[in-house]
């Protein structure tokens, strides 16, 4: 049993932490989030220069060969800094699918630009009717003239408005809820028939509704096997679930620390409100949740890193825990800040909003508890 990280992992975590501390204060973050693009193109280039966009790709593909440990270390810091740059959609989601399914030609076509920071990407894994069921794919890909024609609608596509590359699951066979028959397509976002309506999200990120009307795809746009895309899709979403759970762990720890700091400084009735035992106990409750979540995060990361069969169970356990008890930390943090906790000006409100968005991403707490129960063979 070994909780230590390697020197390289430690350096990676430190470099992200330093970036947050020196270059990404709350004011900077807000300016970036409110810009037209919604993130900083300069900072994205910096991420590429520092190698962060390469971390999770194989060395053979120009990556750094990192895995879940590196990913969660980075994401925890991104949570601490409320980073809005599209690391999750481009690198973890779209990049994750490419890593698992792309052949040599496809890798050559997409990876250097993605890792180099010149290409933005998105994975369209949600449909309007789908809720959290990844297999709920009504978008069709009908075989035609040696290729395919795609029709359908994708919802809440993270980074969907800015992406140059769209990875789109579409059904080549089977019924709407079947896992078999889902094919993954790599589409250029400016392909004919693709319409995008981009918008901001509640957590200062960006997403889009995307409709596909007779969109042409060639057979070498197929990632992996025809009809066999679900496994890679699910595995990528599991990675992403682990990633946002780490981000959320970073968020709640930060919210907790800020709450303690605020309570010590806020004087009412002639004393700091941190001196009230009722609040002290609640701040301790928050701390215990943070520690339990951190522990579960470490466990789930180690399970994922070891590549065992129980990765899905571990990820669902973690996402459930984060959503279920992490929510209490987030709510308490706002409550203890009093009226200040619901102002736009103070950062605590924005931590709350990102945490809330993560609760929904890749499945609610209930969804993951159900999945955990199913997978544990009950």
């Amino acid at each position, binding site marked *: 049993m070994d909780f230590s990280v390697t020197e390289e992992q430690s350096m990676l975590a430190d470099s992200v932490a330093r970036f947050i501390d020196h270059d990404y204060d709350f004011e900077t973050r807000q300016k970036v989030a409110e810009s037209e693009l919604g993130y900083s193109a300069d900072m994205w280039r910096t991420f590429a220069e520092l190698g962060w966009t390469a971390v999770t790709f194989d060395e053979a593909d120009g990556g750094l060969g990192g895995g879940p440990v590196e990913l969660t270390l980075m994401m925890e810091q991104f949570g601490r800094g409320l980073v809005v740059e599209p690391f999750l959609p481009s690198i973890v989601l779209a990049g994750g699918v490419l890593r698992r399914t792309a052949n040599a030609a496809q890798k050559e076509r997409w990876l250097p630009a993605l890792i180099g920071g010149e290409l933005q990407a998105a994975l369209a894994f*949600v449909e*309007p*009717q789908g*809720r*959290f*069921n990844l297999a*709920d794919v009504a978008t069709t890909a009908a075989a035609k003239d040696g290729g395919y024609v795609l029709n359908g609608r994708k*919802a*809440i596509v993270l980074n969907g408005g800015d992406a140059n590359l769209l990875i789109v699951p579409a059904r080549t066979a089977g019924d*709407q*809820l079947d896992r078999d028959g889902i094919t993954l397509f790599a589409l250029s976002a400016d392909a004919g028939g693709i319409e995008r*309506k981009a*918008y*901001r*999200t*509640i*957590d200062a990120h960006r*997403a889009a*509704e995307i409709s596909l009307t007779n969109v042409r795809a060639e057979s070498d746009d197929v990632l992996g096997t025809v009809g066999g895309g679900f496994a890679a899709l699910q595995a990528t979403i599991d990675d992403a679930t682990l990633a946002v759970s780490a981000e959320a762990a970073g968020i709640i720890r930060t919210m907790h620390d800020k709450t303690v700091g605020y309570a010590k400084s806020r*004087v*009412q*009735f*002639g004393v700091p*409100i941190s001196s009230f035992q*009722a*609040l002290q106990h609640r701040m301790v409750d928050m701390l215990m949740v943070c520690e339990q979540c951190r522990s579960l995060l470490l466990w789930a990361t180690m399970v994922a890193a070891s590549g065992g069969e129980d990765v899905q169970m571990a990820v669902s356990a973690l996402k459930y825990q984060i959503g279920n008890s992490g929510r209490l930390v987030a*709510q308490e943090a*706002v*409550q203890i800040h*009093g*009226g200040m*906790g*619901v*102002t*736009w*000006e103070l950062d605590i*409100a924005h931590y*709350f*909003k990102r945490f*809330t*968005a993560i609760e*929904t991403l890749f499945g*609610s707490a*209930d969804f993951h508890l*159900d999945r955990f129960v199913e997978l544990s063979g009950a």
Partner: protein
Amino acid sequence: MNVNYSEHDLVFRDEVRAFLREKYPGDIRHKQDSGIALSKDDMVRWQKILYERGWAAINWPVEYGGTGWSAIQKHIFDDEVAAANAPDMVPFGVKMVAPVIYTFGNEEQKVRFLPDILMSNVWWCQGYSEPGAGSDLASLKTRADRRSDHYLVNGTKTWTTLGHFADWIFCLVRTSSDVARRQEGISFLLIDMSTPGVTVKPIITIGGEHEVNEVHLENVEVPVENLVGEEGKGWTYGKVLLQHERTNIAGVARSKYRMKRLRETSMRRIHDGQPLLDDRNFARKLAAVEIELKALEYTELRTLAAVAVGKAPGPESSILKVKGTEIQQAIDALFVEAAGYYALPYVPEQYQVDFPVAERVGFGNETKSALRYFNNRKASIYGGSNEIQKNIISKHVLRL
């Protein structure tokens, strides 16, 4: 004991329903049902319609324009207004300052202020909280120094809801620091917002909304006639007001309406080919909130029944505030959960009158669910935070 309404009450309920059917404006109804914010004009227009019917101030003594209704009738009225999703009266004039004026003010003040409040000719806001005086309201620092014929007021009030619409502000101000208890130096002063030295600055809240403000008072000259009651008694007046005006604080009727909307939404929302409501987990969560809400409804009815036989509403009303706001917030969270991914888009521009509801991202008001959840975190903080309410219960009910 009888859980059913009397014949008399049922007739009354029909009367209220008929009024709402006939007089609740369709354009305001559309805005309310579509999650579109009402303008100041909308709110005044609706309030004037209630005034025309004689129903603008249901809790006032009849002599000042109240209805003389029984506690049950008031409950029925609140229920029906909420069931129609019609707006409540903006509370600051009719529910907060008016009772202080008619209870503690002099005849000139009653004549001068009450009719305009009743008719919604004048918009009032509340000047209580300060940056340094939240839960510890008695530590307020806004000073009112007595000069010959006026008070000179200096200070900053905060969290002033809809202060940017207001014509007048009622303030708790410090007229004396030379007192044994801080509360004894506080007075209740009425201030015309157009007086030189009054500045309103917006405070933007968590979802980007502008509802609350800071009100800066710099050398504002307030005529002594605007002091209500006696100097140094303002705290008492404010406390009496808070305890007395407790209808709607639990928000039971509103929460009932929202639960109904939540059920409808989760019947429409499909999850794995079935309505979300068929998901046992989700259905259980709804049921748990419904049961808690039923309990709260009866706690409120018990409180009203006690008032009806002449007992003053006491600290039990603090229970209503705590449980009422917890339930509201639980419902907010369930709406977010029901929306699934469609809780994520931030599209306030789609909640304007000229944006067709059918073209919104998602369906219905889903994309507003998270904004509501965020904004309503305030419910457990305002009105005396739930922590303060528990202190009140502890001290005055449990006598700890």
